[in-house]
Structure formats: C-alpha cells, structure tokens
C-alpha cells in the first residue's frame, strides 16, 4: 500500500506545482479583445446576424464540420464496440410519464426547431437545438424501450450522417463555386447556413440518442 501512496503524493506535488505555475502565468496575460474586430468587420458578409453563429457556421465552419464528424465517428465507435443491453430493462410504468411525454415531446421538438431558427440572429443554434431534440428522444426511449421506432436501418444511418453530408455538400459547392472549401456564396449564405444547421440539429439529436443507447439499436446488427 505504501508504493501507491508515494506515487499519489508525487502526483499531488506535481499537480500543485503545475497549478501554481499556470496561475502565475495566467495572471500575466495581457488584456486584448482577440479576434473581435475582424469578426465585426466581416459580419456583413457572413449571411447571419449573430456573431457566434457566424463564427461557428461560416468563419470557422470547418471546425464545426469536423466536430459533427467527431459526433458521427463516436456513434460508429459506440456501434463497433458492440451492443449494450437496451437502456432500462423495464419501461417506466404509470400514466404520469406517458401523459407528460404526450405534451413534452412536441414542445421539445418545437423548442429545438426554434433554437435552431433563432440561432441566425441571437443566442441559440444547431447544437443547443440538437441537444434539446436529443433529450426528447432520450425521454421517448426511456418511456418505451420495447417499442423503438423501427426506422429502416439504412435510413437510420443516413439520418445520423445527414448533418455531415449536407455540410460537406455545401462545402464542396463552395469549393467549386470559387469561394474556397467550406465557403458560401454571399447571397446564398443565409439559406445554406440555416439548411446546414437544421440538418446538423437533427443529426446531433439522433446521434446523442444513439450514444445514449450505447451504439446499436435492437435489430440493427446487419453489417456482417
């Protein structure tokens, strides 16, 4: 038992030293406003009114694209790790949850859609909206684990990948149109960004539900 303790003490000391050094260095940081100015200058060419959305979907759209790819890859990885047992073994019984769900799910879908929609002009966006959709999906699964909607398998995979597919198509379109990979024609920027965000929100929602399920849905082990 003494050896692990020694290594623990050592780790604590090292971590403490790292903390002190980090704090000292952070307190010396100069005050500046980063990229706020270039962002403000470019806003009128971005197609949307909200700065964070402009950065996420336009200026640094490639980051967001790869991030959607991370989510998709995580779903495939969870898939490849094999089936976990379906999430709770029994459904939650009783009228309360059913009744709540009947009202809650449409509200959640509306909220999700709304969040995506307003993301163009104010706080909100694909990720927040997608997360709300995902939460609604998780509730549905919790309430009715035995009767998962039997989406066609290819269809399911397609919907999870939809965000990446639409974003990639838009990005390649930008490349062919001479605006650079992941670029938009300024006149089309708004429409394309909203389309990408909607597709992304749907994929994020479904992806989160699938991660929650631990990968593959019942009756969907067909890749052999």
């Amino acid at each position: 038992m003494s050896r692990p303790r020694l290594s623990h003490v050592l780790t604590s000391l090292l971590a403490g030293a790292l903390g002190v050094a980090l704090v000292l260095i952070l307190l010396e940081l100069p005050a500046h406003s980063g990229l706020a100015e270039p962002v403000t200058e470019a806003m009128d060419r971005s197609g949307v009114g909200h700065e964070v959305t402009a950065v996420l979907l336009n200026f640094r759209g490639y980051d967001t694209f790869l991030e959607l790819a991370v989510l998709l890859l995580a779903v495939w990885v969870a898939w490849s790790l094999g089936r976990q047992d379906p999430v709770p073994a029994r459904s939650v019984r009783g009228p309360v949850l059913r009744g709540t769900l009947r009202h809650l799910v449409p509200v959640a879908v509306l909220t999700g859609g709304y969040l995506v929609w307003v993301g163009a002009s104010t706080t909100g966006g694909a990720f927040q909206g997608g997360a709300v959709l995902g939460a609604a999906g998780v509730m549905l699964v919790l309430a009715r684990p035995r009767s998962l909607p039997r989406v066609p398998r290819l269809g399911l995979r397609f919907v999870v990948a939809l965000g990446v597919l639409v974003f990639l198509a838009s990005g390649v379109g930008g490349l062919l149109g001479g605006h650079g990979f992941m670029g938009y024609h300024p006149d089309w920027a708004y429409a394309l960004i909203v389309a990408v965000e909607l597709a992304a929100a749907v994929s994020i929602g479904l992806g989160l539900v699938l991660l929650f399920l631990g990968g593959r849905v019942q009756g969907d082990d067909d890749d052999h």
Partner: protein
Amino acid sequence: MSPWQAGLLLAFDLTLVLTLLGVAWQLLRGVNLFRSVVLFIAFGLLLSLAWVRLQAPDVALAEAAIGAGVTGALLLVALGRLRRMASGRHGGEGS
C-alpha cells in the same frame, strides 16, 4: 454600475467559483459513484451560470443542455449498467 452592484457581483463571483471548486473536489474523490455523478450534473449547471457571468449565453445554453444534461444522462446510464453487471442479473452484454 454603482460600486454597490459591483461589490455584490464580485461577492457572487467569488461564491460561485468557490462552490465550483468545492463541488469538483468532492465529486472527484469518488467515494460514492452515484453521488459523484449527481454532483457532476450540479457542477455542469453551476458552470453554465459562470458562462452567463462571463457574457457567453450561447455557451451557457450548450453547457446546460449538453455538458450537464446529456453527459449526465450518459453517466447515469453507464452507472446503472455497471450496477446491473455487479448484481449479476445480466451476464454482461451480448456481443
């Protein structure tokens, strides 16, 4: 902003930061896994409060929904599965 308000906000910030650090310390001790997970969800919600204070409402929304909500749900499910494996009612997963 009047000095009063500023002082109040500063007190709020200090309390928030100390609570965050305290919660993080408690949950990372890992004495009781269920407690750790619940504290983690609370940590996520407090964190989104901090993001609001740092004038980042978008991040606050994402943190509350994804950081606290989805991660919390994932953790709870994983914990439930661990417990079921431990109690032996399931012989692991069927892959």
